[in-house]
């Protein structure tokens, strides 16, 4: 297992407020990491920093991509995404008025090119590429049991399915790291259990690194190989689920009492 993402002393200030202070962490190939902590601890801010939605005040992020190790500092969100860091959002951010298929196809935009002429004049190569990419997307959707809904507008999907589609969209980017921001939020225990299986499957079959923010301890403790605990913007603890469950600082700040 080698390091794929390395975060050093990351700081983010909003005005006078320090949302993330001196956070360092490393992610390895093929592992499933959870990021937990009280609301407002800076978890989503950390995700935003890692995926380029906001820029850090200081600190370094380096990523070992297919073309060697690069720094993510100063890169735009779409560049980071195209390097192989995909994510979902806490409040679902699907393209609501696009179909399920189109939602996935958007994420594949940078994986293929269509010449301007072949786009505008529908040359044979256009149909060829469209068919190929659509097939690829449909196959991916089928893995997640969404093949029936390809033509449905995203906004018309039930809540749980929207969450699932968002994960599919992120996977369509062929990421090396997948960031999931509260994927189980709003799901009932049954759906959560399904989701747990799904995430496991994704991680196993696609061999990618998955990082998730989650409050549902059943999910976290079942899934995560390692856990980072964030509190007040700072890294409070890290370790295996067993270690974290017994960490007194974590219990005090977050878990409240010992979790069984």
């Amino acid at each position: 297992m080698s390091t794929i993402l390395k975060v050093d002393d990351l700081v983010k200030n909003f005005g006078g407020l320090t949302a993330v202070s001196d956070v360092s962490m490393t992610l390895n190939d093929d592992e499933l990491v959870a990021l937990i902590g009280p609301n407002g601890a800076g978890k989503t801010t950390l995700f935003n920093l890692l995926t380029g939605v906001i820029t850090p005040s200081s600190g370094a992020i380096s990523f070992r991509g297919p073309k060697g190790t690069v720094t993510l500092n100063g890169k735009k969100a779409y560049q980071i995404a195209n390097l192989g860091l995909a994510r979902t959002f806490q409040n679902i951010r699907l393209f609501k008025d696009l179909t399920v298929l189109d939602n996935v196809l958007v994420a594949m935009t940078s994986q293929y090119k269509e010449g301007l002429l072949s786009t505008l004049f529908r040359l044979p190569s256009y149909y060829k590429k469209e068919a190929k990419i659509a097939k690829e997307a449909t196959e991916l959707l089928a893995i997640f049991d969404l093949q029936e809904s390809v033509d449905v507008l995203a906004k018309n999907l039930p809540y749980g399915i929207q969450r699932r589609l968002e994960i599919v969209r992120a996977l369509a980017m062929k990421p090396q790291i997948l960031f999931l921001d509260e994927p189980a939020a709003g799901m009932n225990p049954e759906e959560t259990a399904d989701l747990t299986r799904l995430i496991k499957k994704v991680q196993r079959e696609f061999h990618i690194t998955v990082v998730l923010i989650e409050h549902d301890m059943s999910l976290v403790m079942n899934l995560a190989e390692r856990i980072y605990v964030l509190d007040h913007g700072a890294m409070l603890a890290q370790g295996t689920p067993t270690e974290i469950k017994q960490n007194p600082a974590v219990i005090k700040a977050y878990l409240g009492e010992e979790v069984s």
Partner: protein
Amino acid sequence: MTILKANFKYNVSWLIIMVAGFYLMNTLMLMGIIDSFIENMLVVIGINIILATGLNLVIGFAGQFSLGHAGFMAIGAYATAIITTNSATAGGFYTSIVVGVIIAIIAAIIVGVPTLRLRGDYLAIATMGAAEIIRIIINNLQITNGPSGMFNIPQFATWPVVYIMVCVTTILIANFVRSRAGRAIKSVREDEIAAESAGINTTNWKLAAFVFGAATAAIAGSLDASYLQTIAPTNFGIMESISILIIVVLGGVGSLTGSVVAAVVLGILDTALQNFGTLRMVIYAAALILIMIFKPTGLLGSHELSFKHLFSGTKRKGRVRS
């Protein structure tokens, strides 16, 4: 396989309709049923279709509220006026369209790169300002003959030319919208942050839509100048941009079919109102308010006429099926 066959079917259907439309118009014209007055109306509608579909690409599909369409139209119009006045040949005319498109593209990049960072109404007012700056510059140049405008422009944009241009630009815009590029710009419209996180370079795609819209506006301007044979800076003011916007919103933001329908409806309404003298604009204004109140999403909402759906009988906006 069937999808491909079907695609062929749809494409052919569209082509048949376009050709049939052409022959129908031509027959009616030869029979004298379409006289120069109706022809005039049809050409104006055609030019408005080009303008509205182009603006709809920017507003309805890329979600960028531009209020400066008339500025780019002016560029095309003046390119054609200046070039064909000096070189009154068909070659000169087509060259002038190309030149107009190129200048409009350059202008759109100059305007778009800084302003497309803005959002919503701020973008609207910035683009409106940019278009006014273009108009004021034209108004004060020698080569454009200042506020007097230019007239006696040779007429190359006869109705068949306009008809073909309408078909071509509409096909191009429709093809653009239903492609990788179209999905990218629609994702920007839906959610810029999510689009960025899905690897979409939102800045570039917004600019692409804006530039494409500007290019088609320039084509419309060229046709307008050449058909009417007279242009003046006052034709390309804020009110012109607004009237194009009205077509787009009335037809339905995000519906190319809607833009076409609205251009036709408003074109006929406008012509019919000529007979009402001073009351004309009063009726027009009242109609506008009433349509908007009773049909807030425009005549067609975001629906499109599509053979794919006519043939297969399914509705795109299907309910939840899973």
